[in-house]
């Protein structure tokens, strides 16, 4: 890496350190932080919870970063794909009686095909076009998805009651069973995709296209096909994220919007197109949000600021993110 690259990385690291220290400092000043064992136990619980949350966030972000990395398109409908995943899982659970995790076997292929269709019909026109085109197309797609789902399912909140119990990790730290299961699933799926990208020929082709599509074409890679596969994969990952959401939280047609913004923040933090970066970014965001909520007075209202603040500062200091290259 060149010198300015390294410098901006250090700068970003310093900023992140400050960002994480901030809740502690504010908490100490406001009196919400105590130094005793009980409070440390609470802190650990919150951090653990943040890591688990982050794992699920990371899954949303990974799909987005793939699309952004390979095609330079910003998918504003990503949250809606997650929402779609939640509804598909819900339907399989309540109408087909299928366990939410097993239903992934059904929903993932459907999601993949959906992604391929979206790419073929809509997004191929946006590759190489100015970013507004991709943004608007996906935004319109997202809106259409929200209102179609609303028409079918109404805006009533749904959720899947699944594994409601708790797991006691230590005497002070308890974690929800369904949260643990979600995290485990997220890890498994992320690992699977990571191995796919790293080891298989197709995966390498995807990474090559992300680095430089023209050179990839020259090397004989069918770039058009890669695009289809990328969006299909991203949609599948989003839907998997949605399944995990459906067993933990309530959702309705409009909950996807928040996920899209969080995913953006994570993608920026981790580095456009960087898979591991997205995973790391997801974990970091999950933890930071929980720290803010715990220690800053009225912090829960400011949780969104954590995502946007991170995003903006990363963009200003080092647009390439943690793992990306410093971009001019």
């Amino acid at each position: 890496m060149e010198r300015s690259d390294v410098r901006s990385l250090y700068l970003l690291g310093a900023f992140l350190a400050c960002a994480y220290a901030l809740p502690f400092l504010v908490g100490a000043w406001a009196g919400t932080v105590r130094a005793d064992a009980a409070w440390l136990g609470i802190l650990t619980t919150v951090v653990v919870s943040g890591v688990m949350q982050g794992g699920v966030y990371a899954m949303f972000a990974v799909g987005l970063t793939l699309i952004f990395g390979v095609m330079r398109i910003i998918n504003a409908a990503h949250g809606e794909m997650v929402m779609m995943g939640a509804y598909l899982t819900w339907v399989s659970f309540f109408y087909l009686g299928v366990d939410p995790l097993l239903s992934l076997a059904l929903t993932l292929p459907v999601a993949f095909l959906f992604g391929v269709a979206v790419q073929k019909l809509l997004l191929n026109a946006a590759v190489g076009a100015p970013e507004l085109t991709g943004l608007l197309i996906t935004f319109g797609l997202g809106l259409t998805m929200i209102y179609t789902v609303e028409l079918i399912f109404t805006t009533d909140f749904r959720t899947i009651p699944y594994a409601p119990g708790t797991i006691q990790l230590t005497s002070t730290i308890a974690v929800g069973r369904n949260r643990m299961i979600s995290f485990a699933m997220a890890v498994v799926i992320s690992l699977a995709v990571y191995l796919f990208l790293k080891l298989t020929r197709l995966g390498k082709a995807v990474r090559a296209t992300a680095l430089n599509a023209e050179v990839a074409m020259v090397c004989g890679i069918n770039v058009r096909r890669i695009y289809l596969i990328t969006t299909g994969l991203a949609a599948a990952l989003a839907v998997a994220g949605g399944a995990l959401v459906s067993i933990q939280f309530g959702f309705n047609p409009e909950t996807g919007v928040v996920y899209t913004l969080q995913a953006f923040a994570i993608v920026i933090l981790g580095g456009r197109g960087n898979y591991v970066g997205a995973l790391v970014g997801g974990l970091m965001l999950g933890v930071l949000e929980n720290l803010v909520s715990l220690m800053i007075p009225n912090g829960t209202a400011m949780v969104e600021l954590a995502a946007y603040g991170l995003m903006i500062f990363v963009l200003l200091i080092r647009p390439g993110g943690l793992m990306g290259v410093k971009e001019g």
Partner: protein
Amino acid sequence: MTWREHLRNLALVALCGFALALLPSALSVYLRSFMLFTMMYVVLALSWNIISGFTGYTSFGHVAFYGIGAYVCAILVADYGWFWLYTLAVGAGVAALVGIAIGYPVLRLKGPYFAIAMLGAAEGTRVVVAVWDSLTHGGLGISLPSAETSMETYYAMLALMLLTIAVAYAVGHSRFGVRLNAIREDEGAAEALGINATLYKLAAFVLSAVFPAVAGGIQAYKVLYIDPPSVFFVQITIAMALMSMLGGKGTVIGPILGAVLLYTAQELTWVNFPTAHLIAYGLFIVLVARFMPRGLVGFAIDQGWVRKGMVH
């Protein structure tokens, strides 16, 4: 463009303005509101176009300025008893300052990064407004004392619209505009030619921030109740972008056309097909972005109806 053509365009705009000025007394209150919002969207689309169309920096968070203008007006009128017209000036000033504060760092980013950063900025502004309870009443929203007749706000918006059109036209046809276009086409080359890109970009950005703020203030005074989600609504930015794109980004007539057509179409479908219209709107956005990215003006140029020029 020759002087005669400029004069002719000016006359046309003045004629429209005159007609619109005479209109309100003949219309029902509902239609007056409709016209007011149409004019508001013209203002918004034109402003957005200055930074995103002329200069090529697609802003996805312009609604932040609209919201700021609305809140400044609401706070000053409801909590401090100001006369509303003065609050508009203050709103414009605050928006300009915020524009400089946000613009200076963020305009260093390129393309999609700028767009996302602006989106983050808009959402961040919304959260700040919601959390800063003591000043903004947070999630409670602000209710303004109801004293206006719908005529005052109508005329205010009309005046704003004419002003915005004039400014956009002036920018588009001046050397300033040419330089903005140069920045859009190739910033490096523009700088090499001696154009201080940073200054020009910032100027365009601030200019594009001021008019939405005033529009937001007028709207707050008309609607008499605002809260963070309603004035920092992402879909307003989308509407601005879509209208400009529909009409033709980077032109003057484009955003005007796009705003009028889209808003009218939206209102008609909403009134007549309340449930389906949102889906139709979503599909419409997809179709326009997919098939008509250069907008109506671009289409007209392709068809040869219109002379290919820099700005119309």
